[in-house]
């Protein structure tokens, strides 16, 4: 059965190509997929009949207990046969139904085959979760197929309504499946049914399952999606919304009936929904003027009947129910296909306009006639046999429910069957009869109730012969309905094994002739009243119109109106919730977060904790000095109105932190903090030089106290955490093992560094990914259109091309008032650059007054020393303070120095590489090391230690995590370079362009 699914999947993938290649005839190839399912089912017939049930089993996700288990018992066999057989015939039909120029056929074909495959999985799955997966797949396929004509509003709305209703039911069903699976300890459908768990939770689960079944099989009160789904192409209506998908709900009921039909809640739901749907559908079908809608409401009605029969829980009704299931699939699919033929030939499905079709299209009329006969229960058709068995079973109730309930059910089935006869005749007469539709000849030609004038009847003489691909599939289905009924004992034998699984009731049997008895009497009564109702259709329609008007007058709820109203309410509620939570104000959001932090963990902290008895003032007195500096700087930073002042004060607080780290015994942190603080200061200044020097004056005085209060609450809460948390340990710290692990597995002595590159390497990997994203974000916010600009080299600068007249970088003013300018011009001639007469290659690109020779010399001397120091930090970091982060930051600061001394072209000279390359290489290196370890048979990111003897150097102790650290290093360098190129060089360029524009205006 897995092979069938694979075949369907392949066909789905190939379908677009096949239909591109063969056009609509490609549907004939697609038909092979469902045909294979039907052939497989037929081939398994004798095994299934004799109880030798084919089972297939594969592991899927063992950790979750998900298995691919398939099982073909009697019920699955019947469903598979229907799904495959009807599917193949419908696809054959499609090959002639659509116009060669019809749109979207490739998608349509693929979706339809995909649906067939999902259905195959649904009916054969033995794992309840697997069943659910296929169940939802059919929902999605149904959505796509109803919405096939996506440019039409009716299709979109119908598709949306169908998917919302069926998915809601599907979710309820999932809840039921999970409860049931957990209660039973297994998700195997056959085992759950064989040993059903019980209890209140299980009862709730059963209700959830029935909710899923009711939505899928369009039972009241959510039946209305099915008639609306008639917006789908007719072959879809025939396959999904008559034969296959809507039967999934019935299938679910039939599956669980042996286990749970005895529950009172089950009986109540099945009987109320079944009878209600049976009667409502039949009643509504009688007033439809559209052939498809007559059939759609008829399907609703029949689904109610089948659910009722299979759900009642006795052997005889179950047998009748699944016989009806099979019969219905055949006759209803046939009738839809017939409708499609009539529609294609005449251009309408309105039975007020159709006339004389039967005479011109005898084969189609024959198919329609046979299928109608089966539907209304005329002997010798399958519908008759099934209905007869149903009546017989209901006349001899198994005593599961009180006698009066049995009586009501029987009455409902009888009345429902009368309605079926009436709308069946209405359909056949409407589609094929020759009517007198002249002006004023009868009610049929009168205008609609809403006043639109009736369109003229069709002219039968214009009809042309239809392709046999169109007419044969419905005829085959109709003939099968006849053939199956002629061998009722075979049907009994085939379907009996399912009925046997039910615990109660007498054995039922299917028969063409049950002898004279009450059942026969009821059949005659049904046919008589049904024919009468059809004969007096004008009166019936008038009656229905009066009931409808009365209904409207009293504002009684109609299911679909209620549904749409509640969807609107839902939208309103969503908007209210959105407007309540999404205030659009950043301070509001942050304030809420902080207050929640203080309110919940804070309150728990205060009420549920023991405060430490004795506190220590400081570890070392130097801490107090640093803390005093931090406190003063932080408070002044908060009060500052000048941007730069605030930035510098925050920087002081940051350096103070570094001191605290150092005093706490964290040299790595101190080093990193100092470096980061330095880079941060430079970057801040680079950007803030463009922003106004003062924060804008805003009337914030009122809210200032609020903000201060929130700040104090947060500060006090966090202080309380700080006091309580260190003594609140309940377990040994994980880091207790770190020294051991660091040395024996990580091969390093600096535990912090080994933690970063080995023990917690995954975290670091995540972190450098974040850095990469941040760097990319910075570049895109500044460069806007590209990942990063070109690499600027000195010889590309304007001064290199134009000479001294060009203004140069940072030419913030004119040179006229700059007396030292002449001195600074030395070495600015382009030809001098290559002769190493300058300290920095690109210093000549600067505006002369911006040059500082001392700075150039210092930069020149410092740069390489810093690079060497960075290399030292990188390679010694495994055993001493340092590592990739610190080394990368040192290189970053070296670049900062070059940039500040020589401008943006000097930055290009110092690092002639795109930062994206560094970032990408770094991440690749880190990930690559991890994967290499996996290839070598270890775990991802596991370190390997090589002790090598290198001549001259001596013993070399090489740990593979060094490469990880080099990756980190490259990412950090890339980040700083990206920042400098964006927030430094590119903003410079903006400023220079702006200045030039100002000058040119003057």
């Amino acid at each position, binding site marked *: 059965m897995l092979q069938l699914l694979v075949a369907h999947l392949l066909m789905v993938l190939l379908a677009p190509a096949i239909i591109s290649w063969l056009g609509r005839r490609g549907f004939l190839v697609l038909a092979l997929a469902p045909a294979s399912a039907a052939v497989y089912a037929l081939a398994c017939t004798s095994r299934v009949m004799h109880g030798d049930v084919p089972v297939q089993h594969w592991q899927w996700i063992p950790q979750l207990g998900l298995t691919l288990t398939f099982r073909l018992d009697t019920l699955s066999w019947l469903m598979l046969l229907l799904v495959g057989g009807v599917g193949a015939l419908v696809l054959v039909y499609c090959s002639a139904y*659509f*116009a060669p120029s019809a*749109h979207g056929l490739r998608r349509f074909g693929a979706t339809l085959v995909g649906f067939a495959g999902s259905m195959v999985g649904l009916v054969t799955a033995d794992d309840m979760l697997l069943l659910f997966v296929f169940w939802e797949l059919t929902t999605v396929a149904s959505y796509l197929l109803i919405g096939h004509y996506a*440019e039409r509003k*009716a*299709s979109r*709305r119908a598709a949306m309504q169908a998917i919302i209703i069926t998915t809601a039911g599907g979710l309820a069903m999932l809840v039921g499946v999970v409860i049931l699976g957990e209660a039973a300890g297994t998700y195997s459908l056959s085992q759950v049914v064989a040993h059903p768990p019980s209890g209140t939770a299980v009862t709730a689960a059963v209700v959830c399952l029935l909710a899923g079944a009711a939505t899928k099989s369009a039972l009241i009160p959510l039946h*209305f999606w099915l*008639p*609306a789904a008639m917006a789908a192409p007719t072959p879809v209506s025939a396959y999904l919304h008559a034969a296959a998908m809507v039967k999934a709900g019935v299938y679910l009921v039939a599956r669980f009936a042996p286990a749970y039909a005895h529950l009172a809640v089950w009986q109540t739901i099945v009987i109320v929904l079944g009878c209600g749907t049976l009667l409502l559908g039949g009643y509504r079908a009688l007033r439809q003027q559209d052939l*498809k809608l007559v059939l*759609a409401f008829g399907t609703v009605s029949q689904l109610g009947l089948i659910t009722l029969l299979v759900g009642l829980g006795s052997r005889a009704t179950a047998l009748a129910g699944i016989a009806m299931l099979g019969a219905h699939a055949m006759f209803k699919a046939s009738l839809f296909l017939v409708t*499609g033929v009539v529609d*294609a030939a005449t251009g309408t499905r*309105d039975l007020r306009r159709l006339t004389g079709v039967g005479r011109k299209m005898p084969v189609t009329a024959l198919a329609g006639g046979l299928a109608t006969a089966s539907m209304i229960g005329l002997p010798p058709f399958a519908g008759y046999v099934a209905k007869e068995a149903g009546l017989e079973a209901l006349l001899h109730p198994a005593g599961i429910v009180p006698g009066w309930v049995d009586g009501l059910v029987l009455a409902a089935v009888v009345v429902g069957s009368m309605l079926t006869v009436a709308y069946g005749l209405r359909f056949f007469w409407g589609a094929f009869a020759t009517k007198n539709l002249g002006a004023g000849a009868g009610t049929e030609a009168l205008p609609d109730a*809403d006043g639109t004038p009736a369109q003229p009847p069709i002219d039968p003489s214009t009809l042309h012969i239809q392709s046999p691909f169109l007419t044969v599939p419905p005829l085959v289905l109709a003939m099968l309905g006849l053939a199956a009924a002629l061998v009722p004992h075979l049907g009994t034998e085939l379907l009996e094994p399912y009925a046997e699984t039910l615990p109660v009731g007498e054995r039922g049997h299917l028969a063409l002739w049950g002898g004279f008895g009450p059942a026969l009497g009821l059949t005659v009564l049904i046919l008589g009243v049904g024919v009468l109702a059809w004969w007096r259709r004008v009166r019936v329609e008038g009656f229905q119109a009066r009931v409808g008007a009365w209904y409207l007058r009293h504002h009684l709820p109609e299911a679909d109106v209620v549904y749409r109203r509640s969807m609107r309410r839902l939208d309103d509620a969503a908007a209210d919730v959105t407007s309540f939570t999404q205030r*659009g104000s*950043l301070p509001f959001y*942050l304030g809420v977060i902080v207050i929640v932090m203080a309110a919940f963990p804070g309150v728990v902290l205060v009420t549920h904790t023991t405060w430490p008895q004795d506190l*220590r003032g400081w570890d070392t007195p130097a801490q107090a000095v640093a*803390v005093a500096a931090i406190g003063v700087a*932080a408070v002044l930073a*908060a009060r500052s109105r000048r941007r730069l002042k605030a*930035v510098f004060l925050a920087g002081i*607080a*940051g350096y103070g932190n570094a001191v*605290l*780290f150092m005093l*706490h*015994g964290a040299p790595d942190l101190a080093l990193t*903090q100092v470096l*980061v603080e330095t880079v941060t200061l430079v970057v801040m200044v680079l950007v803030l030089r*463009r*922003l106004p020097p003062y924060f804008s004056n*805003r009337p*914030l005085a009122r809210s200032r106290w609020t903000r201060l209060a929130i*700040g104090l609450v947060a500060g006090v809460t*966090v*202080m309380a*955490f*700080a006091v309580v*948390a*260190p003594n609140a*340990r309940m377990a040994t710290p994980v*880091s207790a093992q*770190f020294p051991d692990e*660091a*040395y024996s597995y990580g091969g390093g002595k*600096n*535990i912090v560094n080994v*933690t970063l590159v080995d023990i917690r390497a995954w975290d670091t990997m995540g*972190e450098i990914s974040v850095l990469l994203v*941040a760097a990319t974000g910075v570049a895109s*916010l500044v460069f806007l259109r590209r990942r990063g600009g070109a690499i600027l080299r000195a010889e590309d600068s304007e001064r290199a091309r134009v000479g001294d007249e060009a203004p140069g970088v940072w030419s913030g003013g004119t040179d006229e008032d700059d007396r030292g300018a002449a001195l600074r011009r030395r070495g600015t001639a382009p030809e001098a650059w290559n002769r190493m007469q300058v300290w920095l290659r690109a210093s000549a690109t600067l505006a002369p007054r911006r040059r500082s020779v001392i700075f150039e010399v210092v930069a020149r001397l410092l740069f390489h020393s810093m690079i060497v120091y960075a290399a030292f930090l990188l390679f010694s970091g495994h055993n001493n303070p340092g590592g990739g982060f610190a080394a990368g*930051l040192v290189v970053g600061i070296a670049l900062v120095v070059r940039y500040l001394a020589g401008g943006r072209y000097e930055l290009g000279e110092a690092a002639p590489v795109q930062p994206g390359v560094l970032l990408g290489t770094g991440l690749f290196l880190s990930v690559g090391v991890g994967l290499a370890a996996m290839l070598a048979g270890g775990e991802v990111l596991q370190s390997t230690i090589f002790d090598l003897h290198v001549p001259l150097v001596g013993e070399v102790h090489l740990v593979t995590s060094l490469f990880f650290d080099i990756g980190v290093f490259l990412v950090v360098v890339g*980040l700083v370079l990206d*920042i400098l190129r*964006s*927030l430094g060089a590119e*903003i410079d360029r903006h400023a220079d362009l702006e200045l030039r524009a100002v000058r040119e205006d003057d």
Partner: protein
Amino acid sequence: MHALDTTPAVVLVLAIGVLVTTGVYLLLERSLTRVLIGFILLGNGVNLLLLVAGGRAGGAPILGTTPLWHMSDPLVQAMILTAIVITLGLTAFVLAMAYRSWQLHGHDEVQDDVEDRRIARLAAKNEPSFEDADAVESGETLDDEAARTRDETDDEISKDRTGGGEER
């Protein structure tokens, strides 16, 4: 190292308090520069909190340099180190946003989201906040609409593509 007394030093707790208070105070401002400075201060405070949570001061967690019993907790240090570098990335990103905001609007203030306000206004009036032609009631049921659809069974309909003159 876990043998050490874990009671935090009062001065560290004070530093945490000041940094968090000033940090949150600035964070609730509207100017992005102030928000950023607030975030940096807050971040420093939280880093100290982590440090304190790891236990009291000790020697550098480097084998061979510090005896095991005297080591400070390396785990929190690794976490803080990561946080410090991430803060740098965040700083650069927020600065780039501030610069962009200045380019576009001439200031770096975080304005209230106009769209959110609009949605709230419409929600108060129970009006839909978005146009959805499919949700507009057409006065007829979906059944009736379905009855008027036609499949693309002949070439005229497929060229027409609207299926019987129905509106899109």
